[in-house]
């Protein structure tokens, strides 16, 4: 393993829709074991960054490496949690079955999931507190439960690096707590987790590392060093009217916790 130091290494990545840059010459290094939030205003290219890294959308320039290897060779070590509303939840399948899909990449073309795959999927569901609902059709799950199923599917992938696209979007308080404790558990196991996040107030509480993104990387590093008022102001420009308020309340939250 050449460069295990960085779970993700992005060099000069540029992505454009209709030649309009969405990401501009992004350089990003995420050390192994980091629990990182990517924050930035709407349209800053947060989801695009993840999708381009995973090869879901074409990139105009740049190079992405995972644990020092290109995507093709690192695929088995990467887990992905897409946005919840990207799929049709009336699909005829159960929670357990969706989680089992996380194992398809490892199974190859013709092999069917067997008992051990089922066990692994059940264990993943258990980790997100959904074991009791394993056989529930996914159409009967609440939004938060659906989100947890998606997380469990990524867990079942058994990856070392996880990408999560807005896992906290429109979920209930129980799910939010479950996700946070899961994120911390993953960090404690030495996994790297990169989360697209939209709530500035919880960044300090949930994450250790942060990347501030607005078309290009404004700042990236530990929350202590990078999540400063100046950097946030640069990221959100004049567009966030309530910015000082958001910061204040997050300080208050810190004070309260302390």
């Amino acid at each position: 393993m050449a460069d295990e130091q960085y779970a993700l290494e992005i060099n000069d990545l540029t992505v454009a829709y209709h030649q309009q840059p969405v990401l501009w010459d992004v350089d990003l290094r995420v050390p192994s074991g980091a629990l990182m939030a990517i924050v930035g205003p709407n349209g800053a290219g947060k989801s695009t960054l993840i999708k381009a890294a995973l090869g879901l959308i074409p990139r105009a320039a740049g190079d992405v490496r995972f644990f020092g290897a290109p995507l093709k060779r690192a695929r088995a070590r990467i887990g992905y949690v897409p946005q919840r509303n990207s799929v049709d939840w009336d699909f005829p399948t159960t929670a357990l079955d969706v989680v089992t899909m996380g194992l398809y990449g490892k199974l190859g073309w013709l092999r069917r999931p067997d008992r051990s795959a089922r066990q692994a999927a059940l264990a993943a569901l258990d980790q997100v507190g959904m074991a009791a609902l394993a056989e529930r059709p996914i159409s009967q799950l609440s939004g938060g439960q659906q989100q947890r199923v998606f997380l469990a599917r990524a867990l079942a992938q058994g990856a070392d690096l996880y990408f999560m696209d807005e896992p906290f979007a429109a979920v209930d308080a129980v799910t939010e707590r479950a996700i946070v404790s899961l994120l911390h558990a993953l960090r404690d196991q030495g996994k790297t987790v990169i989360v697209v996040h939209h709530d500035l107030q919880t960044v300090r509480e949930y994450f250790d590392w942060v990347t501030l993104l607005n078309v290009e990387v404004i700042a990236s590093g530990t929350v202590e060093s990078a999540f400063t008022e100046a950097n946030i102001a640069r990221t959100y420009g004049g567009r966030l009217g309530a910015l000082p308020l958001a910061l204040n309340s997050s300080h208050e939250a810190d004070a309260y916790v302390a």
Partner: protein
Amino acid sequence: MLPEDRRVWRQIALIGLLMALGAPLSMALGVRYDYTLTNVALGGALLGVLCGMTGSFAVLRSQSLIGDTLSHAALPGVVIAFLLFGREAVALLLGAALTGGLGVLLVNWLVGTTRLKPDGAMSIVLVSFFAVGVALLSYIQGRVGASQAGLDKFIFGQAAAIIERDVAILGAACLLIGALLYAFWKAFKLLTFDPDFARAVGLPVARLNALLSGALVVVIVLGLQLAGAILMVGLLIAPAVAARQWTRRLEQMIVLASLFGAFSGGAGAVLSALERGLPTGPLMIVVACAVVLVSILFAPQRGMLWRLLRQRAAEEAS
């Protein structure tokens, strides 16, 4: 296997059995299975199976109406093949598949390069290809002196003209597409449920999409003779929609959709034999829609009736 799944499988087996009983029942009621009816009924049933298998994916991928575009877009291909090779069945099928497939590609291209939404692109391609076909057909009729009947055979199908060889082709297609689904089962399922994740896992999404679209083209082209261009889309969608109501597993849905399709095709053929001049294709659609109605109303758990009962119970409890 879980008790819930076992229950649904038992239901599916029971439904299959009941539907199969239709054959002896119809004989008891005096339907005579002569050469023509046997072929039409068998062909209809096989076509129904094909529709159930491919239609399920089309419905789940929100591509229900692409079948309508495809079946209409096949007309110019049929006419050109007729012009070049005469009544050679294989040539007609290939011609239909060619322009049908071309139509689907054009829809994708239009959606990709313009502001038009999928419905607009589908509608434009559907009616334009159809018009080109009609224009070509009228050109031939003016020159070769072919009979005026060509167009309505394409539009309404011509079930009575089906011969053993057509049935054999339909059977072979069933095996082929069944094998395709079996081989790539996991990939198709993941692709249909969550294409982004499928790509992230490293599946060749574009090629798998092409395979599924290709299967759809084959089914629709083979169905034109029996059901006709206009009604084909109904036969494609109805069994899948009906089957969706009974189950929460894709494999069960596909099996049940194939059963429903087979029943609709077979029963439509038999019903049309009851009286002279009753059209086969439309009867297949009517049977299929009846199955949908029954499923939407009475399917266990998902059906409207059960939903109503549950609501009533909840109200009484509170």
